[in-house]
Protein backbone atom coordinates (compact mmCIF):
# COMPACT_ATOMS: atom_id res chain seq x y z
CA UNK A 1 0.00 0.00 0.00
CA UNK A 2 1.47 3.27 -0.97
CA UNK A 3 1.40 6.08 1.50
CA UNK A 4 0.81 9.66 0.63
CA UNK A 5 4.07 11.40 1.22
CA UNK A 6 4.00 14.69 3.01
CA UNK A 7 6.36 17.32 1.70
CA UNK A 8 9.28 17.80 4.07
CA UNK A 9 8.87 21.21 5.61
CA UNK A 10 12.23 22.53 6.66
CA UNK A 11 11.70 24.17 10.04
CA UNK A 12 12.92 27.69 9.68
CA UNK A 13 14.44 29.71 12.41
CA UNK A 14 16.16 33.03 12.85
CA UNK A 15 19.79 32.72 11.69
CA UNK A 16 21.01 34.00 15.07
CA UNK A 17 18.95 31.40 16.93
CA UNK A 18 21.85 29.10 17.76
CA UNK A 19 23.41 31.83 19.92
CA UNK A 20 20.17 33.06 21.51
CA UNK A 21 18.31 31.75 24.51
CA UNK A 22 15.19 32.02 22.39
CA UNK A 23 12.92 30.67 25.12
CA UNK A 24 13.47 34.03 26.84
CA UNK A 25 12.34 36.08 23.83
CA UNK A 26 10.70 38.52 23.38
CA UNK A 27 13.23 40.31 25.58
CA UNK A 28 12.44 43.03 28.14
CA UNK A 29 13.72 45.98 26.10
CA UNK A 30 11.22 48.64 25.03
CA UNK A 31 10.04 49.11 21.45
CA UNK A 32 12.64 51.21 19.62
CA UNK A 33 15.37 50.62 22.22
CA UNK A 34 18.76 50.07 20.58
CA UNK A 35 20.18 47.47 22.97
CA UNK A 36 18.74 44.58 20.92
CA UNK A 37 20.37 45.92 17.75
CA UNK A 38 23.71 46.21 19.56
CA UNK A 39 23.34 42.61 20.75
CA UNK A 40 22.38 41.50 17.25
CA UNK A 41 25.58 43.08 15.84
CA UNK A 42 27.63 41.52 18.63
CA UNK A 43 26.33 38.05 17.78
CA UNK A 44 27.15 38.70 14.13
CA UNK A 45 30.67 39.75 15.12
CA UNK A 46 31.10 36.66 17.23
CA UNK A 47 30.19 34.50 14.24
CA UNK A 48 32.53 36.41 11.94
CA UNK A 49 35.42 36.27 14.41
CA UNK A 50 35.63 32.50 14.20
CA UNK A 51 36.39 32.31 17.93
CA UNK A 52 35.60 28.89 19.45
CA UNK A 53 32.34 29.57 21.27
CA UNK A 54 33.12 27.29 24.21
CA UNK A 55 36.03 29.59 24.96
CA UNK A 56 34.04 32.84 25.00
CA UNK A 57 32.46 34.22 28.17
CA UNK A 58 30.19 37.26 28.35
CA UNK A 59 29.85 39.34 31.50
CA UNK A 60 27.27 42.05 32.21
CA UNK A 61 26.51 44.24 35.19
CA UNK A 62 23.14 45.64 36.19
CA UNK A 63 20.93 47.78 33.95
CA UNK A 64 18.77 47.35 30.88
CA UNK A 65 21.95 46.69 28.88
CA UNK A 66 23.14 44.32 31.61
CA UNK A 67 20.30 41.97 30.69
CA UNK A 68 22.14 41.11 27.47
CA UNK A 69 24.14 38.31 29.11
CA UNK A 70 20.88 36.53 29.86
CA UNK A 71 19.81 36.32 26.21
CA UNK A 72 22.97 34.92 24.70
CA UNK A 73 23.77 31.23 24.66
CA UNK A 74 27.36 31.34 25.88
CA UNK A 75 28.90 31.06 29.30
CA UNK A 76 27.28 34.23 30.53
CA UNK A 77 27.45 36.02 33.85
CA UNK A 78 25.13 38.67 35.25
CA UNK A 79 27.20 40.26 37.99
CA UNK A 80 26.49 42.98 40.57
CA UNK A 81 26.20 46.63 39.59
CA UNK A 82 29.50 48.12 38.44
CA UNK A 83 31.48 44.93 38.94
CA UNK A 84 31.42 43.37 35.49
CA UNK A 85 35.04 44.32 34.79
CA UNK A 86 36.59 43.02 38.03
CA UNK A 87 34.56 39.81 37.65
CA UNK A 88 35.79 39.49 34.05
CA UNK A 89 39.36 40.22 35.12
CA UNK A 90 39.21 37.29 37.52
CA UNK A 91 37.83 35.03 34.80
CA UNK A 92 40.51 36.05 32.35
CA UNK A 93 43.41 35.61 34.75
CA UNK A 94 42.17 32.34 36.20
CA UNK A 95 41.56 30.85 32.77
CA UNK A 96 43.84 32.49 30.21
CA UNK A 97 42.27 30.38 27.44
CA UNK A 98 39.04 32.36 27.67
CA UNK A 99 38.06 35.29 25.49
CA UNK A 100 36.18 37.56 27.89
CA UNK A 101 33.63 40.10 26.71
CA UNK A 102 31.89 42.69 28.85
CA UNK A 103 28.56 43.96 27.53
CA UNK A 104 27.03 46.64 29.74
CA UNK A 105 25.67 50.17 30.06
CA UNK A 106 27.21 53.59 30.55
CA UNK A 107 26.08 53.77 34.17
CA UNK A 108 27.30 50.32 35.07
CA UNK A 109 30.68 50.65 33.37
CA UNK A 110 31.48 54.32 33.76
CA UNK A 111 29.64 55.57 36.89
CA UNK A 112 29.75 52.95 39.65
CA UNK A 113 32.23 50.88 37.62
CA UNK A 114 34.34 53.78 36.37
CA UNK A 115 37.44 53.01 38.39
CA UNK A 116 37.48 49.39 37.29
CA UNK A 117 37.21 50.58 33.70
CA UNK A 118 40.21 52.91 33.75
CA UNK A 119 42.40 50.47 35.63
CA UNK A 120 41.59 47.49 33.41
CA UNK A 121 42.50 49.68 30.42
CA UNK A 122 45.69 50.90 32.12
CA UNK A 123 46.77 47.31 32.87
CA UNK A 124 45.89 46.32 29.30
CA UNK A 125 43.98 43.29 30.47
CA UNK A 126 42.97 41.19 27.49
CA UNK A 127 39.21 41.78 27.26
CA UNK A 128 36.63 43.42 25.01
CA UNK A 129 34.39 46.02 26.61
CA UNK A 130 31.19 46.96 24.76
CA UNK A 131 29.40 49.94 26.28
CA UNK A 132 25.87 50.72 25.15
CA UNK A 133 25.65 54.45 25.82
CA UNK A 134 22.09 55.73 26.03
CA UNK A 135 23.15 58.77 28.08
CA UNK A 136 21.22 57.79 31.21
CA UNK A 137 20.29 55.04 33.66
CA UNK A 138 17.46 53.46 31.73
CA UNK A 139 16.60 50.65 34.08
CA UNK A 140 15.97 52.79 37.14
CA UNK A 141 13.89 55.50 35.47
CA UNK A 142 16.19 57.73 33.44
CA UNK A 143 18.52 59.39 35.92
CA UNK A 144 21.50 61.47 34.80
CA UNK A 145 24.88 59.73 34.71
CA UNK A 146 28.45 60.40 33.64
CA UNK A 147 27.68 60.38 29.92
CA UNK A 148 24.57 62.60 30.09
CA UNK A 149 25.29 65.64 27.87
CA UNK A 150 25.39 69.06 29.52
CA UNK A 151 21.96 70.73 29.63
CA UNK A 152 20.11 67.48 28.87
CA UNK A 153 16.94 66.80 30.83
CA UNK A 154 16.67 63.63 32.84
CA UNK A 155 14.67 62.39 35.83
CA UNK A 156 17.31 63.89 38.14
CA UNK A 157 18.00 66.98 36.04
CA UNK A 158 14.50 68.12 35.06
CA UNK A 159 15.72 71.64 34.24
CA UNK A 160 18.90 70.51 32.53
CA UNK A 161 22.15 68.77 33.49
CA UNK A 162 24.82 71.11 34.83
CA UNK A 163 27.67 68.57 34.51
CA UNK A 164 30.08 67.90 31.66
CA UNK A 165 29.94 64.32 30.37
CA UNK A 166 32.81 61.92 29.83
CA UNK A 167 33.83 61.44 26.23
CA UNK A 168 34.20 57.65 26.36
CA UNK A 169 36.63 57.07 23.46
CA UNK A 170 38.92 59.74 24.95
CA UNK A 171 38.62 58.23 28.44
CA UNK A 172 39.40 54.73 27.13
CA UNK A 173 42.33 55.92 25.01
CA UNK A 174 43.82 58.06 27.77
CA UNK A 175 43.54 55.13 30.17
CA UNK A 176 45.51 52.87 27.83
CA UNK A 177 43.06 50.95 25.63
CA UNK A 178 44.70 49.47 22.50
CA UNK A 179 41.52 49.51 20.38
CA UNK A 180 38.84 52.22 20.57
CA UNK A 181 35.85 52.71 18.29
CA UNK A 182 32.42 54.34 18.43
CA UNK A 183 29.39 53.62 16.26
CA UNK A 184 25.65 54.10 16.63
CA UNK A 185 22.94 51.45 16.42
CA UNK A 186 22.23 52.71 12.90
CA UNK A 187 25.72 51.72 11.67
CA UNK A 188 25.02 48.00 11.93
CA UNK A 189 27.56 46.84 9.35
CA UNK A 190 30.38 49.02 10.59
CA UNK A 191 29.56 48.19 14.18
CA UNK A 192 29.66 44.48 13.41
CA UNK A 193 33.06 44.92 11.77
CA UNK A 194 34.42 46.98 14.68
CA UNK A 195 33.19 44.41 17.18
CA UNK A 196 34.87 41.65 15.16
CA UNK A 197 38.15 43.57 15.20
CA UNK A 198 37.81 44.25 18.91
CA UNK A 199 37.16 40.57 19.63
CA UNK A 200 40.28 39.56 17.73
CA UNK A 201 42.47 42.27 19.25
CA UNK A 202 44.91 41.33 21.99
CA UNK A 203 44.65 43.63 24.96
CA UNK A 204 41.95 45.97 26.24
CA UNK A 205 39.57 46.79 23.38
CA UNK A 206 36.65 49.18 23.74
CA UNK A 207 33.62 49.83 21.53
CA UNK A 208 31.03 52.45 22.42
CA UNK A 209 27.58 51.97 20.89
CA UNK A 210 25.39 55.08 20.89
CA UNK A 211 21.82 53.88 21.37
CA UNK A 212 18.29 55.26 21.67
CA UNK A 213 16.43 55.08 24.98
CA UNK A 214 13.00 56.20 23.76
CA UNK A 215 11.32 55.54 27.10
CA UNK A 216 13.44 57.92 29.18
CA UNK A 217 16.29 59.95 27.71
CA UNK A 218 14.76 60.58 24.30
CA UNK A 219 11.29 61.28 25.64
CA UNK A 220 12.50 63.68 28.32
CA UNK A 221 14.50 65.59 25.73
CA UNK A 222 11.66 65.51 23.19
CA UNK A 223 13.80 63.62 20.71
CA UNK A 224 11.00 61.34 19.55
CA UNK A 225 10.84 57.58 19.20
CA UNK A 226 13.59 55.06 18.53
CA UNK A 227 13.07 55.48 14.79
CA UNK A 228 13.49 59.28 15.09
CA UNK A 229 16.79 58.73 16.89
CA UNK A 230 17.95 56.36 14.16
CA UNK A 231 17.10 59.03 11.56
CA UNK A 232 18.95 61.58 13.68
CA UNK A 233 22.04 59.33 13.65
CA UNK A 234 21.78 59.13 9.86
CA UNK A 235 21.77 62.92 9.58
CA UNK A 236 24.18 63.81 12.35
CA UNK A 237 26.92 61.18 12.33
CA UNK A 238 30.30 62.02 10.93
CA UNK A 239 32.84 59.27 10.25
CA UNK A 240 36.35 60.28 11.30
CA UNK A 241 38.69 57.27 11.46
CA UNK A 242 41.93 57.95 13.28
CA UNK A 243 40.67 61.19 14.80
CA UNK A 244 42.22 62.24 18.10
CA UNK A 245 39.43 61.05 20.40
CA UNK A 246 39.59 64.21 22.51
CA UNK A 247 37.80 65.81 19.54
CA UNK A 248 34.90 63.35 19.81
CA UNK A 249 32.81 65.12 22.46
CA UNK A 250 29.04 64.71 22.23
CA UNK A 251 26.71 67.67 22.75
CA UNK A 252 22.96 67.33 23.07
CA UNK A 253 21.52 67.46 19.54
CA UNK A 254 24.98 68.00 18.03
CA UNK A 255 26.88 65.86 15.54
CA UNK A 256 28.11 62.44 16.59
CA UNK A 257 31.66 61.61 15.58
CA UNK A 258 31.99 57.89 14.85
CA UNK A 259 34.81 55.66 13.64
CA UNK A 260 37.87 53.76 14.77
CA UNK A 261 40.09 56.08 16.77
CA UNK A 262 42.79 53.83 18.24
CA UNK A 263 44.34 50.54 17.06
CA UNK A 264 47.81 50.01 18.55
CA UNK A 265 49.97 47.17 19.87
CA UNK A 266 51.19 46.97 23.45
CA UNK A 267 52.14 44.10 25.81
CA UNK A 268 49.19 42.88 27.87
CA UNK A 269 49.07 42.20 31.59
CA UNK A 270 49.45 38.47 30.93
CA UNK A 271 52.40 39.07 28.54
CA UNK A 272 54.26 40.80 31.37
CA UNK A 273 53.32 38.07 33.83
CA UNK A 274 54.62 35.38 31.50
CA UNK A 275 57.84 37.28 30.98
CA UNK A 276 58.35 37.67 34.71
CA UNK A 277 57.68 34.00 35.24
CA UNK A 278 60.13 33.01 32.51
CA UNK A 279 62.81 35.21 34.07
CA UNK A 280 62.22 33.71 37.47
CA UNK A 281 62.47 30.20 36.09
CA UNK A 282 65.67 31.09 34.24
CA UNK A 283 67.39 32.53 37.30
CA UNK A 284 69.79 30.37 39.31
CA UNK A 285 68.35 29.66 42.72
Amino acid at each position, binding site marked *: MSQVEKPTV*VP*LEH*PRESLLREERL*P*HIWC*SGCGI*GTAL*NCFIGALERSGLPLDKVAIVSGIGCTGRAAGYIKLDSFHTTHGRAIPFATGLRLANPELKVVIFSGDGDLIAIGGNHFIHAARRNIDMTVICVNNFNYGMTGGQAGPTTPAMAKTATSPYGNSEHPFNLPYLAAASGAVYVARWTT*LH*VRRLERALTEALLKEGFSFVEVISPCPTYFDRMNRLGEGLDMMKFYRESSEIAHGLDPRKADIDLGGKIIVGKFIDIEKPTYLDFQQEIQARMEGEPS
Partner: protein
Amino acid sequence: MNYWRKPLDIERIKLPRGKVYLIEERCKGCNFCIEFCPVGVLAASERFNAKGYHLPYPQNEEACTNCGLCEVICPEFAIYSLPRDGKEEEPRE
Protein backbone atom coordinates in the same frame (compact mmCIF):
# COMPACT_ATOMS: atom_id res chain seq x y z
CA MET B 1 14.24 48.15 -9.15
CA ASN B 2 14.82 51.69 -10.37
CA TYR B 3 18.35 52.63 -11.32
CA TRP B 4 19.64 56.16 -11.35
CA ARG B 5 22.19 54.97 -13.88
CA LYS B 6 21.70 51.57 -15.45
CA PRO B 7 24.73 49.41 -14.60
CA LEU B 8 26.62 48.32 -17.75
CA ASP B 9 26.71 44.69 -16.67
CA ILE B 10 23.06 44.47 -15.66
CA GLU B 11 22.37 41.77 -18.26
CA ARG B 12 25.20 39.56 -17.06
CA ILE B 13 25.07 39.92 -13.29
CA LYS B 14 22.40 37.97 -11.51
CA LEU B 15 21.12 39.90 -8.54
CA PRO B 16 20.58 37.76 -5.48
CA ARG B 17 16.93 37.34 -4.60
CA GLY B 18 15.61 37.03 -1.11
CA LYS B 19 12.50 36.32 0.85
CA VAL B 20 11.74 37.85 4.23
CA TYR B 21 10.35 35.99 7.22
CA LEU B 22 8.81 37.51 10.32
CA ILE B 23 8.48 35.91 13.75
CA GLU B 24 5.33 37.82 14.55
CA GLU B 25 5.17 37.38 18.31
CA ARG B 26 8.63 38.95 18.73
CA CYS B 27 8.03 42.13 16.72
CA LYS B 28 7.60 45.38 18.66
CA GLY B 29 6.68 47.53 15.70
CA CYS B 30 9.69 49.86 15.86
CA ASN B 31 9.69 50.20 12.03
CA PHE B 32 13.50 50.13 11.74
CA CYS B 33 13.28 47.42 9.08
CA ILE B 34 10.73 49.39 7.06
CA GLU B 35 12.73 52.61 7.14
CA PHE B 36 16.18 51.19 6.45
CA CYS B 37 15.57 48.44 3.87
CA PRO B 38 17.69 49.82 1.01
CA VAL B 39 15.14 48.87 -1.66
CA GLY B 40 11.85 49.57 0.12
CA VAL B 41 10.60 46.00 0.37
CA LEU B 42 8.73 46.44 3.64
CA ALA B 43 5.72 48.48 4.71
CA ALA B 44 3.56 48.72 7.81
CA SER B 45 0.53 46.47 7.66
CA GLU B 46 -2.84 46.91 9.31
CA ARG B 47 -2.29 43.68 11.20
CA PHE B 48 -0.95 43.59 14.72
CA ASN B 49 0.29 40.88 17.04
CA ALA B 50 -1.02 39.73 20.45
CA LYS B 51 0.77 42.61 22.18
CA GLY B 52 -0.79 45.14 19.82
CA TYR B 53 2.30 46.00 17.79
CA HIS B 54 1.77 46.73 14.11
CA LEU B 55 3.69 44.28 11.96
CA PRO B 56 5.73 44.96 8.84
CA TYR B 57 4.94 43.03 5.67
CA PRO B 58 6.76 42.64 2.34
CA GLN B 59 4.73 44.88 0.04
CA ASN B 60 7.34 44.57 -2.68
CA GLU B 61 9.06 41.24 -2.11
CA GLU B 62 10.25 40.97 -5.72
CA ALA B 63 12.80 43.67 -4.94
CA CYS B 64 14.39 41.92 -1.96
CA THR B 65 18.08 41.29 -2.58
CA ASN B 66 18.63 39.16 0.53
CA CYS B 67 21.03 41.81 1.83
CA GLY B 68 20.13 40.95 5.43
CA LEU B 69 20.02 44.53 6.68
CA CYS B 70 16.55 44.11 8.21
CA GLU B 71 17.85 41.03 9.99
CA VAL B 72 20.74 42.80 11.70
CA ILE B 73 19.03 46.12 12.45
CA CYS B 74 15.98 44.50 14.09
CA PRO B 75 16.36 44.83 17.88
CA GLU B 76 13.98 41.91 18.43
CA PHE B 77 15.50 39.12 16.32
CA ALA B 78 12.08 39.07 14.67
CA ILE B 79 12.82 39.40 10.95
CA TYR B 80 15.29 37.74 8.60
CA SER B 81 15.84 36.94 4.98
CA LEU B 82 16.87 33.81 3.11
CA PRO B 83 17.72 33.17 -0.52
CA ARG B 84 14.53 32.82 -2.50
CA ASP B 85 15.45 29.68 -4.38
CA GLY B 86 15.86 26.25 -2.89
CA LYS B 87 14.36 24.43 0.01
CA GLU B 88 14.40 27.47 2.29
CA GLU B 89 11.33 28.48 0.33
CA GLU B 90 9.06 26.52 2.66
CA PRO B 91 6.92 28.84 4.72
CA ARG B 92 7.43 29.13 8.46
CA GLU B 93 4.84 27.21 10.45
